[in-house]
């Protein structure tokens, strides 16, 4: 087995991979930027290397610096996590050039799947359903008009190099096509330095359902059930579950087998995810493939009992899968909430800053994958994901009840998080019934106006007033008649708390 793995990432996913390494007896190596000097992934690693200034381009996206650390640390493999360089085929090549194993697919498979239009062609070749639309980049606005007319409105314009919702535009009717085409192209150009767009049928109220795959270098493929990821804001997932509330064993088999056929086309190995859109009649269409570990992999792990990160590492080392499709059993239901540093009341505005209090839930059926700790200054430079809170229970209703309990136990102070948002969503009828689609939040999330005044709210206001008064009073009183000894200790405590990660 590998002796040392460099984790080319940060935050919760770096921590997740470090843990897998530790459990496999592999020494984990971290990298860090200025803003991450005392990040959790640094604290938990065996070795940590400084790779530059806080902006990602100067650190986590710098291939050169990471390759230097590879050489210096003598790591024999690299795990890219998700995001950053995880889907960059050039990085795969650079890693392999210095004789180090990339824990992921071949550069070729990554490239093929990274190009949306090519991936779509592969899916068609694999006899998997795809959303009706262009097979190739649109040459012109005229072509766009023509194709849109043919497949019928509404249609969707998408950046060929895209991801994360950038360069995407829905077009409801013909007269809006020209301007949408313009905007999508310029967004795509700005975001990916590639203005190429293509066009697809727009699926009304689609569900986002994806299949988790594992494939080894010997050509064995298994699917590990699906994940429903329809709860999205800004086209990014915020709640994921396994299984999907709509999936039957038969639908799962169909989607799983289609997914494997697609992956086979690219001779794919590693963990991988085939994303589908499902319409209201449960027809499903290939959307894209993610050639890396997904953020939401824990729900699959909870339901299948398989450790995806360990499997990735074993596959990269050349080991064949130790199980076949018939060994994969789904048990119960799992739901994940992405705890973001965002103010859901204010349109999910990012909210970095210092975590002054962190009290995480525990007890039966709880899994937390966190990248932060009390006292940590959440940097302004990176993704706002603080932690993934997942629960498992025997059934979906029990998982929802457990998640509610667990969110009530979760306390993060100092910054705004999406915890209150999740509490609200879990109480909604449509969520409880599993009536989900990718427009869910837009339709169902209306940040609270003032709660109506009840005797209960009045009592809570009274208690809040009392606690404020007592807190204020104690704070002042204590400082007036403190002893030298108290002052000594406490000043230091304040100093480390306030300054946190450095001196």
């Amino acid at each position, binding site marked *: 087995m590998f002796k040392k793995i460099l984790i080319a990432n940060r935050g919760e996913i770096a921590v997740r991979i470090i843990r897998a390494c530790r459990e496999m007896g592999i020494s984990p190596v971290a990298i860090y930027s200025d803003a991450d000097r005392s990040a959790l992934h640094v604290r938990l690693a065996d070795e940590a290397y400084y790779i530059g200034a806080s902006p990602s381009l100067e650190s986590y996206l710098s291939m050169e610096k990471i390759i230097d650390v590879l050489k210096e640390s003598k790591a024999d493999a690299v795990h890219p996590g998700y995001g950053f360089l995880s889907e960059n085929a050039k990085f795969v090549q650079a890693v392999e050039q210095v004789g180090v194993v990339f824990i992921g697919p071949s550069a070729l498979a990554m490239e093929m799947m990274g190009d949306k239009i090519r991936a779509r062609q592969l899916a068609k070749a694999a006899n998997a359903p795809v959303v009706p639309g262009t097979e190739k980049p649109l040459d012109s606005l005229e072509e766009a008009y023509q194709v849109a007319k043919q497949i019928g409105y509404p249609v969707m314009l998408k950046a060929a190099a895209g991801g994360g919702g950038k360069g995407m535009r829905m077009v409801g009717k013909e007269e809006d096509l020209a301007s949408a085409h313009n905007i999508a192209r310029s967004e795509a150009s700005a975001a990916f330095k590639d203005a190429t767009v293509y066009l697809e049928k727009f699926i009304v109220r689609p569900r986002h359902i994806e299949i988790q795959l594992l494939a080894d270098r010997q050509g064995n493929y298994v699917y590990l059930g699906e994940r429903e990821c329809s709860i999205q804001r800004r086209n990014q997932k915020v709640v994921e579950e396994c299984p999907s509330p709509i999936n039957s064993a038969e639908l799962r088999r169909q989607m799983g087998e289609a997914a494997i056929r697609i992956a086979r086309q690219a001779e794919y190995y590693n963990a991988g995810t085939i994303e589908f859109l499902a319409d209201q009649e449960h027809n499903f269409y290939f959307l894209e493939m993610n050639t890396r570990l997904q953020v939401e992999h824990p729900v699959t792990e909870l339901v299948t009992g398989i450790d995806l990160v360990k499997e990735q590492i074993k596959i990269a080392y050349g080991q064949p899968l130790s199980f076949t499709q018939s060994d994969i059993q789904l048990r119960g239901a799992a739901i994940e909430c992405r705890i973001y540093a965002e103010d859901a009341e204010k349109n999910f505005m990012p909210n970095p800053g210092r975590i002054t209090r962190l009290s995480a839930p525990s007890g039966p059926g709880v899994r937390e994958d966190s990248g932060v700790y009390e006292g940590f200054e959440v940097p*302004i430079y*990176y*993704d706002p994901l603080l932690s993934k809170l997942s629960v498992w229970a025997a059934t979906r209703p029990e998982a929802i009840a457990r998640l509610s309990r667990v969110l009530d136990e979760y306390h993060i*102070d100092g910054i705004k998080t999406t915890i*209150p948002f999740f509490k609200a969503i879990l109480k909604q009828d449509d969520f409880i019934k599993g009536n989900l689609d990718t427009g869910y939040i837009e339709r169902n999330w209306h940040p609270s106006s003032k709660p109506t005044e009840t005797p209960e709210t009045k009592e809570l*206001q009274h208690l809040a*007033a*009392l606690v404020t*008064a*007592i807190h204020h009073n104690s704070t002042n009183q204590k400082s007036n008649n403190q002893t030298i000894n108290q002052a000594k200790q406490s000043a230091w405590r304040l100093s480390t708390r306030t300054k946190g990660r450095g001196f």
Partner: protein
Amino acid sequence: MKLELEIESKTFSVDWEQKNDNITATIDGTSYELVIMSPSPNVYTLLLNNKVYELAIEPNPLTNTNQVKVVNQVITTKIVDHRQRGHKTDKVASGTQPISAPMPGRVVQVLKNVGDEVKSGEGVIIVEAMKMQNELGSPKNGIVTAIKVKPGQNVVSGEVLAIIE
């Protein structure tokens, strides 16, 4: 002890006595008998007729207010300090309004210069945090009288970035 507080622009008088962890209080005319504990700094557990309430207080020195979290609610409280009342109102010249950073971040662009005329809502400064850009607009029609930041500069939450008059 006696203090006056403000919640949602209503004033509450709090009058209380404490003996060990027992509190007798009159708040806004209502009497309470409570048990109070502080399991950790800024966290208070109250027992009111055996009902358990846990409140966490987060003082915000910039606005001189406190965020009190209780039972899935956040209540903003403010100690009314009669001595300082006069001073405060003097500080902000009437007709002048600041544009403040709603979150920590980095200034990516300054769209206006000092002396420029701006309409209400018109973008003045773009701040980025966590890969999201946030265009901060003018709070009113007026003239930019000060720009206090430069592109590339990091700002903290609540920091005044520009002044509109």
